[in-house]
């Protein structure tokens, strides 16, 4: 019963969240000064069109319609499961998103796992050996990277690996001029490696800094002091008590990282001309492709919410204080 109420509450919460996110995204695009006709057809071409053609295009892009009415009609369709047709790609939004998401997922998953695993390990090491040379090295790396813009890291990677060393492709997700059927998995991986690396490098820095803080708190705790007094070595203290007590906050961080990586893909995919969700959202936003933009907004919001939701649920499973507290 209690679980059912909790689940229902969460469902209402996510529905409201998605509604707000889509409304805000819609408002932002509708107050944008960009005229979809000028942006997508061009000033020169627009001038050569007849009034009839212009009117046809205006109704296609929904120029004259009042915003509220446009939003409500989109919402009505969306709730019924129809995400509409992308105005720019002229394909159903579902198809566009499926294709872009598949590309982005490779980057997202790679960066998520690498940042999590390496960030956690580095944070634990730095925190356990606070103040030593290894801590200072890890901390310097993290601070420098955390304050470096992601797009700049992307450009540097391109410069080093694609231009100077020429061991990685300069952009895109598949080789240029190759038929889709001929593209191998190796090709795809080769094209994904640099953008994924750029995302990971920044992700690691954030996770490391946060994990380090938690680890320092654990190492300064009474129970670690007592463990030392009981003859446990630093190594054992780190593996037995450190990791155990840092893993819970690290879990929250790891799922909050989805949010950051998702935002990062927008920049990275722009720099690497990588045709993923991030690039699609930029195209949709600048081109006034309302159905596509709103659908991506809703889906990425749902992804972030899903991540936090999983973290919360796992907390209850992993932490005995919550698990036993609930069952009492």
């Amino acid at each position: 019963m209690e679980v059912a109420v909790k689940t229902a509450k969460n469902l209402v919460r996510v529905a409201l969240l998605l509604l707000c996110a889509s409304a805000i995204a819609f408002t932002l695009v509708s107050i944008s000064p960009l005229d979809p006709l000028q942006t997508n057809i061009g000033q020169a071409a627009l001038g050569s069109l007849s009034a009839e053609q212009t009117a046809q295009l205006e109704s296609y892009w929904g120029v004259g319609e009042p915003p509220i009415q446009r939003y409500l009609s989109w919402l009505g369709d969306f709730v019924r499961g129809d995400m509409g047709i992308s105005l720019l790609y002229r394909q159903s939004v579902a198809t566009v998103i499926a294709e872009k998401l598949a590309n982005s997922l490779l980057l997202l998953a790679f960066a998520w796992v690498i940042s999590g695993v390496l960030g956690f390990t580095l944070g634990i090491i730095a925190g356990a050996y606070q103040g030593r040379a290894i801590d200072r090295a890890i901390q310097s790396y993290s601070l420098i990277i955390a304050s470096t813009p992601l797009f700049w890291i992307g450009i540097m990677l391109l410069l080093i690996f694609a231009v100077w060393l020429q061991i990685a492709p300069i952009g895109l997700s598949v080789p240029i001029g190759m038929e889709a059927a001929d593209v191998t998995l190796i090709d795809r991986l080769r094209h994904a490696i640099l953008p994924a690396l750029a995302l990971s490098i920044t992700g690691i820095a954030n996770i490391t800094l946060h994990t380090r803080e938690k680890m320092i708190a654990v190492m300064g705790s009474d129970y670690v002091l007592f463990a030392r007094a009981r003859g446990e070595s630093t190594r054992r203290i780190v593996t037995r008590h450190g990791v155990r007590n840092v893993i819970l906050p690290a879990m929250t961080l790891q799922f909050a990282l989805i949010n950051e990586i998702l935002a990062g893909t927008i920049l990275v995919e722009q720099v690497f001309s990588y045709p993923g969700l991030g690039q699609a959202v930029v195209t949709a936003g600048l081109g006034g492709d309302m159905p596509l933009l709103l659908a991506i907004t809703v889906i990425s919001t749902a992804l972030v919410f899903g991540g936090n939701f999983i973290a919360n649920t796992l907390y209850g499973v992993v932490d005995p204080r919550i698990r036993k507290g609930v069952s009492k």
Partner: protein
Amino acid sequence: MSNINNCADNTVLDIRNLSISFQQYAGRFSHTQLETIHNLNVKVHAGELVAIVGASGSGKSLLAHSILGILPYNATWSGEIRYRGELLTQTRIEELRGSEIALVPQGVSHLDPLMKIGTQILKGRKDAATRQKMEEVLERYGLGDGVENLYPFELSGGMARRALISMAVLEDAKLIIADEPTPGLDAKLARRVLSHFRELADDGAGVLLITHDLELALEVAERIVVMHDGTAVEDTEACNFAREETLQHPYTKALWRARL
């Protein structure tokens, strides 16, 4: 038990001229030494319970930490600490702590909040003999009935104290240092906890009890060392606290009067 052996054999802990100071930053480039404990002398014999009594902030816990070699990095100490006649260097204490020399800390915050009590007591040992012994020790302290499978947050204050004591008992420690084991307990529970330390001393261990509670200390200790301003101002038999005249230092006399 006869204690006719000569004193040197029977002394478990011998602290001579112990001083502990902290490095403090004064301004940007200079730092000063802040001396918290100076010229402290304490002796504990086998089978004896010595109580160090002092107000909070008099450096009592630092004394415990210096014996166990777990002072913070910005602290330095000088003097001599001997365990059964042998000089305790950092290397030596690292070998002895947790086995022959055991700390019994204040309370539940000294237990890993995410690890079961039994796992913490066993400290990674899995052999049947140790398990068996642990169960006996827990039973002795009224912690049978699956307490070993509980997490620290499920223990009461008294249970946590007894769990911490059973850790020292499992190791057969010859020197037990109890750092404020009673705060937060009511008088009856505190007495019960202290009586456990008395039993350990009667079984032959040397016990150094660090406390701020003179009243309780007098009930269980043979000797009382009064700490004031970082040093021992009085080191006397507990029976001398019966009358004010047998006490030496004004601070001790003040403590004595405060009891009335």
